[in-house]
């Protein structure tokens, strides 16, 4: 059975807990220190968005394997307001932090696979995978 962890996000403590769980699993899977830090940053950004925009939600992390590759999957889900204009949100330079490279485009860059589903007033589910090289 592959490892799977849930962390509830409803405070900054939740963000830290998600980071911690993510780093631990990344290390166990065998990611190097740079990738560990990248995965953790991605989790951090996703968890912060949940906390800031949806108030609460969940980060699920799990080990995955496909086609002989091993990796780690992050699923960030919430039932918050959803994201109206996905295309704009994925554009560089759109984040409120403005041109500091973080935000969702940053998460996409930090990870290998990235997908986002969002329905206004229903919620948002973001899935991202990093593969072990």
């Amino acid at each position, binding site marked *: 059975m592959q490892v799977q962890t849930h962390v509830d996000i409803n405070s900054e403590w939740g963000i830290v807990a998600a980071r911690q769980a993510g780093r631990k699993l990344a290390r166990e899977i065998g990611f190097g220190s740079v990738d560990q*830090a990248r995965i953790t*940053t991605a989790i951090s950004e996703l968890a912060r968005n949940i906390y800031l925009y949806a108030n609460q939600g969940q980060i699920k992390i799990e080990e995955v394997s496909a086609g002989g590759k091993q990796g780690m999957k992050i699923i960030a889900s919430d039932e918050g307001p959803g994201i109206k204009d996905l295309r704009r949100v994925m554009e*560089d*330079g759109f984040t409120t932090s403005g*041109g500091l*490279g973080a935000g969702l485009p940053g998460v996409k860059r930090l990870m290998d696979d990235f997908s986002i589903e969002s329905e206004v007033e229903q919620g948002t589910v973001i899935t991202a995978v990093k593969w072990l090289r």
Partner: protein
Amino acid sequence: MEDMKVSMYQLYKDMLTSYLEDKSEHALYHAQQFSKQMMEQDMSPEETVSMHLSVFQDIADDLPEEVTDSFDLLLEVMIGYGLAYREHQSLRDRQQELESELNVAAHMQRTLLPNKKIEIDALDFGVVSVPAGKMSGDYYHYDIDDRGNFAVAVADVIGKGVPAAMSMSMIKYAMDTLTDKQMQPSVVLESLNRVVERNIDDDMFITMMYGVYHPDDHYFYFSSAGHEPGFFYTAKDDTFVSLEAKGLVLGVSPKVRYEEQKLKLDPGDFVVFLSDGVTESRVNGEFIEREQIVDMIRERLHMDSQEIVNEIYEQLEKAQEFQLRDDFTLMILRRKV
């Protein structure tokens, strides 16, 4: 790619070893050059930090644990810089794309301007038109109609850059649909006004000066739609007067009448059309006076029209340290004989 990383690792290790041995500036210089190589190979800041630690652990035995641990913090911070760096790269690519799109558009725009030679013996004609950016909000036109009359026009969109340039092409197409019978300045401006009024935003205006020279009787007719006045030079008295005619800017109201003026051009007389990019040139931080433009022309009366406009442009460009603030168009039409 992985081999690349391995050889980078080795290079970095050699560099660091040599630096730790003699602390020479030479090794540091080497490192500075090396950083360019790293960027070329897309090495991110976080990878660099991590490489530094690995190399360091390799060459220095028993590093204190605090030193190693402190790199966790540095790495975390560097992830952010790494992201900013990546974003910068992607924005730079995007900018290059936009730039080349703009170049294509600017080229298309230049093809809208006339470029044929004027073969009228009595006439000496010169024009210079330079955009402040890539695209121009100025437009000029000259053409000879079926009856051998010579039409000239300068237009200026209030605004700059791409939106201005797009309105400019509309003027060009609207002019193309005019027939020769309509080549009377006031009529031309009236019909262009209708097109502009219907087709552009309320907050956008176009000013224009349109004139026609009749080589058979040497009369020059002109009308203006709120455009920067030009000049009229009479050789006999050696004087310049402002070339003005009443008329509202294009696009404000659907029905506008334009006053039409006429002048007799004697040999040596000429008219000057310009855009406000000329009069709003700033020299030493101050707008130049129309009087100064007159002086610049006067100093060059012995040259032909094209030389005069070229030289004035060059002089003003230089005075503004090669940074035009507005699109610049200057045109001279002189009766030679």
